[in-house]
């Protein structure tokens, strides 16, 4: 469901960010590294590569612009704020605040990505 998509997204983006940090690599390399760790059984690795193809470039771009996982996942539509509700976030808010950060991130990612997410 939507909540689980949000949790999964925040988790995966956190891992990509931290893998890059631990291995002193780019985010793209970190994403490839993460997929390489997964077993081929049950098509887990294949699914990871497919998802990386769809979301990877946008996630990487946003992480490179120092957006945290909460902002990334709201920007690509996997986390959604309900009307009248606060932003659900795992990490402490950034200096610019969630609203500004998400608006800026949304500008960065093309509409096409949202369509991809919706289709998926």
């Amino acid at each position, binding site marked *: 469901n939507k*909540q*689980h998509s*949000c*949790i999964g997204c*925040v*988790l995966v983006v*956190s*891992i990509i960010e*931290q*893998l890059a*940090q*631990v291995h002193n690599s780019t985010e793209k390399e970190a994403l490839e*590294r*993460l997929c*390489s*760790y*997964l*077993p081929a*059984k*049950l098509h*887990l690795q294949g699914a990871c590569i497919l998802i990386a193809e769809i979301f990877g470039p946008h996630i990487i771009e946003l992480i490179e612009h120092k957006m945290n996982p909460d902002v990334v996942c709201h920007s690509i539509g996997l986390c959604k704020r309900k009307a009248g*509700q*606060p932003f*659900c*976030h*795992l*990490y*402490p808010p950034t200096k610019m605040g969630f609203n500004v950060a998400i608006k800026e991130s949304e500008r960065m990612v093309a509409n096409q990505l949202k369509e991809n997410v919706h289709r998926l």
Partner: protein
Amino acid sequence: SGVCSLPFLKQLCEKIQLLIRCKLPFEDLDGDKFSLYPTLRGYHWRGRDCDDVQASVYPGRRPHNWDADKDSNCNGIWGVDPKDGIAYEQKFCKGTESKGIILLGDSAGAHFHIPPEWVTASQMSVKAFSNLPEAFANELDWPQFSGVTGFLNATIGGWTESLYLYLRKRNRCNHRDYQNISKNGGSSNNVLELVKSLARSQQFDKPAFVIFSMIGNDVCNGYPDTVEHMTRPEQMRTNVMQALQYLNGLLPKGSHVLLTGLADGRFLWDNLHDRFHPLGQLNKDVTYEHFYSFLSCLQSAPCVGWMSANATLRNLTSERALQLSSALKELAKSEKYANFDVFYMDYPLKEVAEMWQKSGGEAWQLIEPVDGFHPNQVASALGARIIWKKILREWPHVLGKENPSKDEIIAVFKDQGGH
């Protein structure tokens, strides 16, 4: 649903959906509810079948013709002693009060666990993820290492210590006679559905020792108005009585049922809230307080009441849990059944923590690090030790006598065909 509408997948999908719902083994050719396959509710969950073609052969069955010709109950004891012509099952197991152990439980009983190395960048590797398919096929549960029915050496930290292993050590005739009938989200509200997957025949099987252990979901939910959705004591009583009535029609005479109370989940916040979650350990930026708040905000927390910064709410949740435990305690005192006796004991979380602290450990080390909610491998193992000792002290008849032929069984049958 899209994939499952394809004609060639429809039947398979329906079977998988049915089995997932019914908590029955996916691979079970003879339909006796026991399997040769480990995951998908196979022998990680209930004793391994030793013949998946004959429905009359499965763990827990009373031996047919003392198993002179074949091992009809899969306990690894069969054949005839050439020295005196007496069947081994008769010689070693007759009159030993052998029995099976069955858990009706929740995610704690099924042993829910997400390995921290799956979410910790510095510990990730191909090896760390090698158990991912198996974990998915077991619904992220690890019953094979659990405190009631665990039988394999733990590969997720800690060690395996279980009531089944204790019972098997006491009497090797109990080999493979275990069933873990648990599910994530299990509570008194759905136990009646769950208990229907229990495999026991009054006519053909040995008695069983059933443990009803739903330690939190009756007070745990993800709703913002969480108290409104908690089970009420009278509802708890009705639910459990219905389950016991059902068991009375299922269990062989001489069985036993142990009801355990709910845990006091204030333990979670008290020991974790200011510690770093595995996702926050690298940059020291995510504590369990943040993690709990994130899940609650998404209405995906397994337990809003106890995973809350609001002390009043945490206390209210514990108060309701105590009321529900009291309802179980009363029920154990007042209700009588023809085929089993009923006992009650508190969930021994406090004793587990004390035992762990005495050996130099800290309380937070007893909680699953990724979900910040479930008892972990160490807590499960110590819990089993404490429960076993209590039963031995207070209700020893439940466990049956110690089998005097234990060493002889080991000498003749070695590992009894393994698990």
